[in-house]
Structure formats: C-alpha cells, structure tokens
C-alpha cells in the first residue's frame, strides 16, 4: 500500500516508455488496436485512469489484466518501461499493493515476457534478483537501463 500521492509519481515518464512500445507494434493506430485486450494498452489505461481520478491505488484492477494478449513482445522493447516502473517505485516493502498504479504497469509488462508472474517483494533490488532467476537476459537489460539513470 503506497503512502504517496499520485501527483508525486512521474506518470508522463511511464507514458513515454509505453509510447515507445506502441510505436513498434504492427497494430499501432490501426483498427486492430484494442487497449482493453492489450497488456500495454491496459498499462496506458491504468495511467490515464490514475491521472483522471488522482488515484495511486485501483483496488481490484490487478484482476483485470488482459492475460490473453499473446502478441510477441521482446525484452529489448519492454525493458525500458519496466525499468521506469522500478525508478518510480516507492519501495513500499511490507506495504506493497498489487493494485498500486506502478505495480499494475509493471505487472502488465512482466506478463508480456515472463512465463510466471513475480510476487513483487516491494524492493527494486530484490525484484531484479527474482527476475534474474526467471529471465537473466531481461534482468541484465533492466540493470543496464537503470544504470542509465532517468529518462
């Protein structure tokens, strides 16, 4: 559970990263682009809902993740956005909520790449360690992105 306000989160930085993924998508700006059925579209909807409602936590939203999105996603394409969620993460640790806006975006992006969902430990360091167990290439890309600093 986050104890910060949504205004303190850089939603625009997350949006920018999601835009980059969309621009590389074959369905981008086509009739086939359906946000509610797309993991990245879901993440974008989360951000705009959070901005409109000034919510940092959307109870129950994690259950609405479009897990039937089987479009191909690549680590290089998604790593920048996941890294941005790590930058924005307030490391709530024991107070982590899966319905936190940042967690929702991260979960959506993880689902695009990982076979199994990661039970987020509430800390970026521990998170990278868990990613490494499942997807060493993604962990390496994330580490590199995070070393670059803020976008």
């Amino acid at each position, binding site marked *: 559970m986050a104890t910060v306000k949504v205004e303190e989160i850089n939603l625009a930085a997350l949006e920018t990263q999601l835009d980059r993924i969309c621009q590389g998508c074959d369905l981008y700006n086509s009739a086939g682009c359906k946000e509610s059925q797309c993991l990245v579209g879901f993440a974008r909807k989360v951000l705009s809902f959070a901005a409109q409602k000034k919510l940092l936590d959307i109870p*129950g939203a994690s259950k609405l993740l479009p897990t039937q999105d089987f479009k191909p996603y690549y680590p290089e394409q998604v790593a920048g956005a996941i890294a941005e969620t790590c930058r924005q993460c307030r490391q709530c640790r024991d107070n982590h909520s899966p319905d936190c806006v940042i967690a929702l975006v991260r979960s959506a992006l993880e689902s695009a790449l990982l076979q199994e969902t990661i039970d987020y430990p509430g800390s970026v360091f521990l998170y990278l360690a868990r990613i490494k167990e499942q997807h060493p290439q993604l962990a390496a890309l994330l580490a590199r992105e995070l070393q670059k600093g803020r976008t």
Partner: protein
Amino acid sequence: MNVGEGYFKQRNGLIAVDIMAACGVMTAEQWFGLGQAARENNVFRLKMTTRQTVVALVPEENVERLVAALEPLGLRVAPFGKVVRPVKACPGNEALCPRAIADALGLGIVIQEKYVGQGVPKDFKIAVAGCARGCTDPQCADFGVRASGQDRFDVFIGGRGGTVKPVHGIPIARKVTAEQVLGLLDFVLERYRNLAQPYERLCQTLARVGEGQFQPPAELLASPGEEASEFARFLQG
C-alpha cells in the same frame, strides 16, 4: 466529580484531572486558556498523555474551579473506566501531515464526538492512523483504523498494546469508507456488549468466542471493487 471521569488522587495528595480536546489538537486560545486556568488554580504540572489528553495536577480544593474553566475553552474532563476512551488519531490530513493518504484526524474527531464515554464491558480504546506507518498504533487498539487510500480505511479489532501479553488486532475490513468505519464500529460495540463477560477486554472476548462472531455482515463492508468496476468500464471505453 462524576464516577467514570478522569480524576485520580496522586500519592502526593494532588488530583490528576485528565483533560481531552479534539484528538489532542488544540488552538492557541485553548492552550493559552488552559495555561491561564492552570496558573490561577495552582496546577503543579501539565502532562501530555499517550492518549493525546492533558493531565493537570491540581490541589483538591481547586479541582472544581479548574474544571469549570474547561467548558468555555471547548475542553472537558475525559471519561475513564469501562467506557470508550478518548480517540487517539494521528495528524493525518491534507493540512498537517505530508504522508497522510486520507483524513484520519477528521475521522478520529468524528468518532470521538460520537462514541467517547459510551459504556462498554471494559475500557475500549480506538486509534486512527492516516497511513501505513501507523503512528497511533492502530493494531494495538481495541478498534484500529488505518488509511489505505483516499477515503479508504482498513479496520482492525482486538488489539491491546499493554499488559504482559500484548496482542495485535485482526483485520475485519479492508478499504472501507469513513462512513462504513462508523457502521463497523457500531457493529463491533454491539457484539462486544452482547458477548463479553464483565470486565473482559475485547481481545479476550475474541479469543473466547472466536473471530467469527465479530465477522461483519456483507452490507457493512466495501462494495467489491467499486473503483475496479469503474476502471473496468473505463478500460472498455
């Protein structure tokens, strides 16, 4: 002096008068007025308590005069004994705490105004916190409230911070509104009054009769995922 109010004879012969305000928040005028009344009545010391009240140590012959000075200041003697005690609330609101995610102070004051002094089988302590840091130790209160979002609170019951066997409260509701918190408090007090043995603290009642007896009915709990339903519509739109 009324039975059940916070007057305590001290070993040195002074009377400790327990004075309550709006969950510990006072205006400068109230502090000034209290200080003036304390000086005029030879108050030996003023002590801030863990329940956010102020204890005045006053000679017995001056108690009535001191107490008479409280009402015009909007202050009063705190109830004591088998009653709902003054509410402990953190300063969590928009104006006072940068970490607050809901108006915990406002809710604490509303609860105190409505419930303080109500009779119960044993002392009943309430704590309200505006974020998960829980500065007022809501899980150590008989009825603890902890903000979990904008106008959303988690509710714990059966905590006890003291004794040689302290107990953490158990959650009975998540993400309910301030209005629902009041409904839950009515429910818990009603169950406690009906189920507790004399002088039994809520944690002991819970241990004896089981948590199920204090499980709130569905209508008192948050409608399942109000924001989620709205978000689901937004997602499809």
